[in-house]
């Protein structure tokens, strides 16, 4: 079973790859809108990539207001 740290690590790697930001510059507690430089449409893209990667469904309202990688990982863990 994946731990929160595993999930957070996978999210950071995925985000770094797709939004072309150095993995070393991303940290779990960081605001991903700022660190990835993304808007709301790109946040939807991130949501879809996470759903596809972890094979889960994440209703928008569960991640609304979430802006750090760690909390995102917690939401995903609840559905794994």
């Amino acid at each position, binding site marked *: 079973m994946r731990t929160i740290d595993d999930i957070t690590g996978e999210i950071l790697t995925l985000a770094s790859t797709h939004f072309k930001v150095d993995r070393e510059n991303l940290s779990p507690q960081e605001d991903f*809108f700022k660190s990835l430089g993304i808007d*709301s*449409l790109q*946040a939807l893209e991130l949501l*879809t990539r996470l759903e596809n990667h972890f094979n889960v*469904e994440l*209703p*928008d*309202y569960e991640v*609304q207001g979430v802006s750090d990688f760690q909390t995102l990982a917690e939401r995903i863990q609840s559905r794994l």
Partner: protein
Amino acid sequence: MENYSGETLSWEMIDGCIELALHREPCNEIGLKTLEELEGFVAAHNELKEESHTLIIHSRMKAGFCAGADLRELYLGASQIGFSNAEPQVRDFLNRIHAVMNAIDSSPLTTIAAVHGVTFGGGFELALTCDLIFADKMTRFCFPELRLGLIPGFGGIPRLNRDLGNAVVRDILLTGRSINATKAQNVGLVSQLAAENESLKLARFTAAQVKKFDRKTSAAAKRFLKPIPYGELNKEIDIFCHLFTEPAVEAGLRKFVESTDAQPYLP
């Protein structure tokens, strides 16, 4: 008119397949200009349908297929005359867009929506007029209207109800959540799942197959299989117009339009 290049959309006929491309920044929001050009497309389609077999609708915008109605235009238009006086204008717009949607839905051609990215609200409803939806795996479908105090107004509920089980419709509508293409395929909404940016290519492969069939047989099969739910569609317009004058809609639209947040206002 076999080819047309407009402000918000363009079309061309290639070997009996009409390709309608949406290309209005940022994500093909449907306002008056798009409506006018869609009406022009319907008129052209009526001329071209005898020599065509397939219609593909797709988007050239990176963000997605279509983000739905132009909420800024809707809000500004209603604000100018007052929301409580806006019903006739809203009803006129809805009657016109319904005529477009019904024309595409009842086209004798085999119709394919090749979608990607954001396919929300009116964009989702446009895709639902097509016989087949091919979606790339980054597509998201959503009816966010309840989050603004409204219901979908471009024929979405009756068409989704026709095509899928009512439980799925309730899930999507009453939660206002968006679903990805894999989920949409699992519930029977998406016919074919494409790799990223490949949905148009898959639609063209299918158009080449459809071309081999007798056009009249395909059209007869479609008429038999796909009734247009006119009664429910008209009821939807009435419900939308009734809800539109409620204070919650004006407040919700204002917050949405005025928002500069990275995540725009949607409760």
